């Protein structure tokens, strides 16, 4: 009796073991791309993987949104239950890599030539300690103006080349009775706009020193004060009801022609696309005045976790598919961003996308590709959020002067470092 039981147990466990040794043909993915266009774009990836025989399984996140997803991820990782990959942003990847939970894709990276095709600035976040830990999906850039062409024609405006031109253009809109600047008064939107203002006011060198190297001298310099003054000037052109507005509602104001311009990252283009608007005829995309030639970027990445061996093959397939040229093109056409590798043909992209690809390439080669501080690519989250606090308090009047703002900025960043 006992022997039979033992044999039975041994057999059963043997079977279980055999089943485990087989590769798991499934990709477990944590992400928050659930809205129409993004979900459609992700279906391309699902299709590519299905062709290779890998099933796609979304890790459910209650509540949606990046914050909820990151909280869920933290809990999963703490419990030792890693997803195959997770959508991640900037320093989060490095935090998890430092905690030793990320996988190693260096072999795949070598085979696929990621080292050469992915911009060096991005590799800062996808490579940790010499190992590839994440696959960048796209590159967004932040320093864009989105302009309603009908309104622009009505007020007789032309492309602003400098900050003063921009102010003159906004004045024209104001005189014509349109809301000049569409802004959502949430701290990240204000700070995203301020990224562009600083780049425009101080130039590329200054931006890098202040917002990527967090150099104290630059942070408290007169140039930074001037930047805050310029921001204050821009804020005088928003409508009184801007506080708390979501970014896509601000974009909708431009689409509908209620407002002339929005300063926003290129994800705003997804909204124009969804409203069936074409660049050049319905809307215009310009670089933020005075930032031509530089790109302030953020990027979505798929962080790859240190999964058990039987799930590694699926992970490699996911990473390879993510950085394949066909997916990079198909996905980014829909998302509004540009490919995370610089060797993807721009044939399928619209005018703004083509400009974005060319700008990224030039900025990568010219060393003017900088991480956006507001989007968490300039400094770790503690610093980035301290920065957003200061900018937002300045916009909403808790901080009253640019002198005070600069003092607070230095204090807050030092505190968070």
């Amino acid at each position, binding site marked *: 009796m006992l022997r039979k039981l033992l044999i039975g147990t041994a057999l059963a466990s043997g079977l279980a073991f055999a089943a485990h040794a087989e590769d798991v043909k499934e990709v477990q993915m944590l992400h928050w791309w659930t809205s129409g266009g993004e979900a459609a774009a992700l279906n391309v990836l699902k299709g590519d993987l299905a062709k290779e025989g890998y099933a796609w399984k979304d890790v459910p996140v209650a509540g949606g949104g990046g914050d909820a997803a990151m909280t869920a991820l933290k809990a999963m990782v703490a419990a030792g239950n890693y997803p195959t990959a997770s959508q991640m942003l900037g320093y989060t990847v490095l935090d*998890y890599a430092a905690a030793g939970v990320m996988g190693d894709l260096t072999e795949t990276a070598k085979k696929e030539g990621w080292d050469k095709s992915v911009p060096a600035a991005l590799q800062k976040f996808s490579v940790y300690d010499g190992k590839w830990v994440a696959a960048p999906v796209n590159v967004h850039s932040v320093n864009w103006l989105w302009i309603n062409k009908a309104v622009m024609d009505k007020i007789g405006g032309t492309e602003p080349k400098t900050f003063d031109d921009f102010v003159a253009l906004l004045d024209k809109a104001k005189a014509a009775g349109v809301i000049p600047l569409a802004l959502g008064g949430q701290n990240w939107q204000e700070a995203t706009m301020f990224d562009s203002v600083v780049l425009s006011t101080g130039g590329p060198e200054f931006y890098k020193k202040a917002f990527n190297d967090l150099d104290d001298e630059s942070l408290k310099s007169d140039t930074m004060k001037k930047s805050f003054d310029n921001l204050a000037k821009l804020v005088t052109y928003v409508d009184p009801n801007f506080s708390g507005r979501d970014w896509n509602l601000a974009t909708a104001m431009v689409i509908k022609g209620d407002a002339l311009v929005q300063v926003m990252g290129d994800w705003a283009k997804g909204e124009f696309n969804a409203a069936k608007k074409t660049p050049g005829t319905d809307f215009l995309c310009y670089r933020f005045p005075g930032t031509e030639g530089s790109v302030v970027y953020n990027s979505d990445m798929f962080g790859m976790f240190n999964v058990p061996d039987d799930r590694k093959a699926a992970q490699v397939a996911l990473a390879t598919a993510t950085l394949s040229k066909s997916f990079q093109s198909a996905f980014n056409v829909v998302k509004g961003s540009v490919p995370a590798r610089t060797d993807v043909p721009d044939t399928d992209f619209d005018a703004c996308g083509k400009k974005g690809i060319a700008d990224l390439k030039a900025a990568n080669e010219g060393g003017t590709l900088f991480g956006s501080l507001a989007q968490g690519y300039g400094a770790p989250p503690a610093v980035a959020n301290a920065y957003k606090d200061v900018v937002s308090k300045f916009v909403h009047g808790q901080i009253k002067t640019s002198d005070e703002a600069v003092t607070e900025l230095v204090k807050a960043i030092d505190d968070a470092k």
Partner: protein
Amino acid sequence: MSTVATSQIKLTPEHARPRASVRSRLQDALPKIVLAPSFAITIVFVYGFILWTIYLSFTNSKTFPSYVITGSRAYQRLWRWTFDTDPPSSWYTSITNMGIFGFLYILICLALGLFLAILLDQKIRGEGVLRPIYLYPMALSFIVTGVAWKWFLDPGLGLEQTLHQWGWTSFHFDWIKNKDFVIYTVVIAGVWQASGFIMAMFLAGLRGIDGEIMKAAQIDGATTFQLYRRIVIPLLRPIFLSAFIVLAHLAIKSYDLVVALTSGGPGGSAWLPSNFMYEYTFKRNEMAVGSASAVIMLMTIVAIIVPYLYSELREKPR
């Protein structure tokens, strides 16, 4: 059952006794066995995690928990931020908002709840319809309340816009967009949600008052105002205490209302300590600071609850 047991004892005492005692011992232990799982769960998931949070607040935890004790730096930072008033630090904003919100929310809910309860207690027709109407907001989650009031109070969408369309163009109500007044909109939404529940508590209390006392007072010539002022309200004292405790802990744990209603308010001006705690722990990866703020919130609650429990336990022997 017991008769069978006693008869068995009489027949074969030496065999039956241990069986009966096993059963009776089991019966004695049954409540303990039934309570044990929930007791164990409470010990671990409430008190265990309280201790864990206190421990974390003294470490250098950032994104992930770290177990290296580094002293009270997190508390020192909070202490310093407590006095950063101009421009206000996020922590200073959070605790002053807590004071404003807690005070007004509790006071208005108590006053409004009592007032509605007294009105409903006038033996009016249709009380059965009116009571649930006031009570139902409590059945909504804070998220629903927050979103509904967010739309209602938005100057471009709700009240102000509607009144402008009706012709009252000078009407102006933009508190929800104003850094100095946004916390009061949280009070409005919170009061709307909770005052019906407090009304139900007072109503139950009013129904428990002996009608004879009221009649006696009326015969003695007390006016209605005097009747309530001198007799009814003093008799409702225990209800006041319970309502206060319910409201106080609702106020301290309000988080979702602020998020849904204001998403933090202009420049973070609507934050409560719970928002501060979540922001620092999960979004800014400063888990030690977040834990320290959670410990301070806990101490605030303890400071309210312990005197209450003390007075409750002291009254029991009477």
